């Protein structure tokens, strides 16, 4: 790049135009780009201001304090049609997080099962897993959402003759109703016991690992942890007189009363995102396991480590290193795909924002909010996964 450094002196060099100086040309191109960009932004800004004035829309975020005046189907936080637009957006944001969180967990579970299934020695299982992956990978997620929403849940029976599943779960075209746990007084002791158990398990696990590192003695960790985290709270729960009851849904004439209801919008979005993303996660998991060279597990077998332990201690830790980076991008994809909620009217951030946009015409503000929120979600997820990845990464000397 730098011609000057190789030329012995400036004297015997032929004179040349400044236009041929790579450094100057670099500045020139960048300056031109900035000029063009600024000009373009200026032109867009002028037009926008003019258009907004003509449409009588005041720019700025003041509208967020206005009364929303619309209802949302499902909300985890207090909301009514008298709440503000800002509150409505918050409801949408919480709903986005909810469906993304549930979807990520389910998709990970299904994806790992299917991905391991594809590598199974069992022919039938491997083929079934392959069919699952090839099926869901090649259809649009939006179509899967509609399949659940208008194909399956919408043709479920009316609420008064809802399908009854075990444990008092009812399925109707209004969603799934299930018993809602009612916490009475003294439930908190069970909770405290659980927290204490968790803390104790953490320290025991640390102690066990340290002891194993030093002496090679193993510790029955799993039974201990299960006992501490489930057994002890259970004993406390029974001792305090079982302070938990269930509000069971009852089929009324027009609707189910009591219990908790999950609407068909959430269900179809959740199911579709989970099944769709799981097919991608399955492929990532498969690639990860195949990416661990066979010599690793053969060496483990040669050392006399049992197959189960080989998988847990040799294959999976190495496979995770390959799996985590693409897994992160799948989680992000799922979160972004949750914006398809707008197609079926699940009140996520985009759907609520779209309603507000139609009501107020504050297009720029709403789109800016969307961009900021999704970028924040993306960046924080990738930061977290990078940290996790750094922890898992191979420490090379």
């Amino acid at each position: 790049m730098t011609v000057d450094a190789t030329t012995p002196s400036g004297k015997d060099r032929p004179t040349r135009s400044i236009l041929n100086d790579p450094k100057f040309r670099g500045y020139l191109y960048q300056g031109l780009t900035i000029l063009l960009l600024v000009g373009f932004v200026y032109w867009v800004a002028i037009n926008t201001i003019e258009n907004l004035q003509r449409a009588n829309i005041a720019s700025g975020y003041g509208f967020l304090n206005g009364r929303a005046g619309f209802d949302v189907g499902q909300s985890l936080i207090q909301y009514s049609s008298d709440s503000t637009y800002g509150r409505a957006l918050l409801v949408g944001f919480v709903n986005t997080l909810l469906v993304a969180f549930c979807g990520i967990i389910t998709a990970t579970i299904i994806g790992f099962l299917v991905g391991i299934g594809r590598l199974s020695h069992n022919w039938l299982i491997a083929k079934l897993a392959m069919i699952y992956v090839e099926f869901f990978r090649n259809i649009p997620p939006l179509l899967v959402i509609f399949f659940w929403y208008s194909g399956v849940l919408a043709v479920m029976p009316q609420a008064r003759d809802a399908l009854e599943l075990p444990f008092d779960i009812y399925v109707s075209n209004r969603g799934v109703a299930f018993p809602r746990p009612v916490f009475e007084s003294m439930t908190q002791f069970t909770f405290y016991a659980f927290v204490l158990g968790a803390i104790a398990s953490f320290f025991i696990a640390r102690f066990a690992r340290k002891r194993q590192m030093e002496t090679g003695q193993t510790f029955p960790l799993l039974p201990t942890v299960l006992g501490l985290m489930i057994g002890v709270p259970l004993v406390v729960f029974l001792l305090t007189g079982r302070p938990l009851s269930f509000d069971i849904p009852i089929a009324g004439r027009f609707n189910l009363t009591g219990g908790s209801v999950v609407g068909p919008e959430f269900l179809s979005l959740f199911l579709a995102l989970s099944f769709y993303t799981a097919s991608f996660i399955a492929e990532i998991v498969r690639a990860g396991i195949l990416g661990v060279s066979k010599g690793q597990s053969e060496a483990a077998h040669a050392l006399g480590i049992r197959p189960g332990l080989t998988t847990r201690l040799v294959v999976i830790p190495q496979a995770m290193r390959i799996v985590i980076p693409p897994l992160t991008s799948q989680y992000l994809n799922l979160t972004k795909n949750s914006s398809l909620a707008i197609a079926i009217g699940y009140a996520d951030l985009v759907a609520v924002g779209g309603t507000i946009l139609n009501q107020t015409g504050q297009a720029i503000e709403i789109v800016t909010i969307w961009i900021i929120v999704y970028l924040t979600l993306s960046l924080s997820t990738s930061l977290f996964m990078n940290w996790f990845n750094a922890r898992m990464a191979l420490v090379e000397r």
Partner: protein
Amino acid sequence: MNAEAINFVRRDMLAQEPPPGLQKGLGAWMKKNMFATPKDSVLTIIAFLILVWMVPPAVKWLFIDASWTGGGRGVCATVAQGGSQPEGWSGGCWAFVGAKFDQFLFGRYPVEERWRPILVGALFIALLIPMLMPKVPHKIINAILLFIALPIFAFVLLLGGVFGLVPVETPLWGGLMVTLILSFVGIAVSLPFGIVLALGRRSQMPVIRMICTIFIEIVRGIPLITVLFMASVMLPLFLPQGMTVDKFLRALIGVSFFASAYMAEVIRGGLQAIPKGQAEGADSLGLSYWHKMNLIILPQALKLVIPGIVNTFIGLFKDTSLVSIIGMFDLLGIVRLNFSDSNWASPVTPISGLIFAGFTFWIFCFGMSRYSGFMERLLDKGHKR
């Protein structure tokens, strides 16, 4: 040497033994691949039970009980729902798909003008097939025809209004035609833009690098639906009064923007895989930046990422279904529009239409992913030792 003297050599042959049991045939295969261990056996039996539970009802629903012919909702509804099927009937309503098939392909494009999309489609296939076959020569001419000449020709022919062709407004376009146009234009635009963005992101000039990085990261960080909203709601705000952009064009712009950012990352992966010595070699020969890129770096980088490009295309193809949310009638949109046709409304109509749409999407995407795998194997050969 005297053979008699060698006492340790056997003189007579052993009798032929029967083949070892369970080494060949179906039984042995099943024992090896399905019932090798008790755990395997349990899994096999569970999987088999699930198959028995799911497949026969599915086949019955899809083929045996389905109504294949008929002129209205009667064939797809039970007596109680106002149709002719017996009580408790449920099956695919393929008569609905058959009756609406033309619409699913072309939307509301005028019937007497449908030869135009058909002609474009035929030309597209005629140009695409030699493009996809690695052995056919003249790839550059083929690419120019496919990615530059064909879109212009298709634009003129489909829109009409010149050469005595009846104008057909874009709101009338629909169905698979729109899905294909959107994804094809998306890919044709995103390839050059993606290359420019990827080069920009690796540029030595900080301002250009920053602009490209910000663009790529923002577009990749937000969902496509917000990009489409931006294109459909904000674009009219950005333009001076009186200058309007067609809704179809807005969707095209949105999809192309989105695809460009993803394409840029795929291509950047390819650029990073090229050893530094290649660029240094080009520099030492005195090639200019564009010569270096055009003749040395990009041909190698693009060849490396063909599978990635096809994967981006598959994603784009699936993502075009989102334009139905902003009120356009692509394949999914037109199928959903027809749910509200009172002539065909029945409980099984939506699911039948969706299964048809899903099947169509699946065929396209599966074909593309197979092709991507084929190219991957083909290109891999050069690197195997």
